[in-house]
């Protein structure tokens, strides 16, 4: 799956969590722009993990602050 396809699928997954309908690009941050709290992060990460059949450990999550980094990380984890 290329980056664009991965991006599209993550965009679909993020929708129910994006309560305020914030416009999302690669620089959109989860904590700041999307105001995700820790419970939302857990549910959102679980949705992505299940969709792509991957694990994003908390150690890896700590490195992911914005949307673009998430898409890159998911691409990489699928490749591994």
């Amino acid at each position: 799956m290329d980056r664009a396809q991965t991006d599209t699928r993550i965009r679909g997954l993020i929708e129910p969590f994006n309560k305020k309908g914030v416009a999302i690009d690669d620089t959109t941050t989860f904590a700041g722009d999307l105001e995700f709290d820790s419970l939302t992060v857990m549910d959102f990460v679980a949705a992505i993990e299940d969709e792509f059949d991957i694990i994003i450990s908390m150690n890896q999550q700590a490195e992911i602050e914005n949307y673009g980094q998430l898409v890159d990380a998911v691409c990489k984890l699928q490749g591994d």
Partner: protein
Amino acid sequence: MTDLFSKFDPLIQQRETLLASGVEDPFNLVMEKVLSPTRAICNGRETILLGTYNYMGMTFDPDVIQAGKDALDNFGSGTTGSRVLNGTYQGHREVEDALKEFYAMDHAMVFSTGYQANLGIISTIAGKDDYIVLDIDSHASIWDGCSLGNAQIVPFKHNDIEAMEKRLRRIPEGAGKLVVLEGVYSMMGDIAPLKDMIAVAKANGAMVLVDEAHSMGFIGPNGRGVAEDQGVLDQVDFVIGTFSKSVGTVGGFCVSNHPKFEIMRLVCRPYVFTASLPPSVVATAATSIRKLMHGSNKRAHLWENSRTLHAGLKALGFQLGTDVPQSAIIAVIMPDLERGAGMWEALLREGLYVNLARPPATPANMTLLRCSLCAEHSSEQVQTILAMFERAGKATGII
């Protein structure tokens, strides 16, 4: 002024707002006198204690107290040293022997607190390329054990067997796996479906650590905890426990049947680099643990108390953390922190102490009034407690 403390400003503000409303500070209560495991003088008022972890009421047991006094006389007030240097006395061996007998396991290692037991064991056994799969509602000491180590940390939704299994299956081939669970989750007082969870963990090649802090002495035919109760204690690689709850003093431990377990004493930093427990503490713990082996009548009464309080609070219209009582902890769910603090204070005025718990300690950002029962609460006291809840609940508009 901006300095390193500025990050605490929102919390300071929240606290000030709460106290400005006139309520007593729920996190600053002083017990001036302790009359028994279930009664104390707080702010000059006699108060029923319903928010301690003194589940089996061992703190005033005459044999336990005598053992502590004897140890003070014979071994002094403290060891002034690490377990691996000058800090292992006869009493430390004796309490480890008592634990081995209590759990019928080969090895027991005593730490200065249960917090340190989790910190030490978890951070030491799971290394850099290993994976720790744990329940999202795990106790702070488990999370801190994860932070202290270098393993990959993978949480799953509370008590969700399928979520746990999926994560275990996705772990790369060859990586070491540790599943960390609790018997009783202390905020809501619910138990884990350990039988099924441990079967899944084992099927996926993981080692299993279960924190039984809130079940020791009370749950299971021999008081060994939820894993014993569900018939899977032999599948658990490491049991973590504490002396600060049913045992009635302070200290923590890990018991295990792993043949190489004793090496932990040399490699586990929160065991090595801190002073050992005072002789009086290990003596009271050993005596208490041996008495807990014969506590079946007390256990039965504690279950009865738990059932009566749960049914009574439910009938009064309070919202509870579990549909049926699963442990000695009954969590009463409050609409928010402000009204929770108001209800907490109203109960204190009635002469009842419960725990006010709030985020981040609680799941789902809830404010809880946590009631923990004691085997020494009489049936009449439980009725008194229910009447207090009714008056305070109506006065504050919670029910």
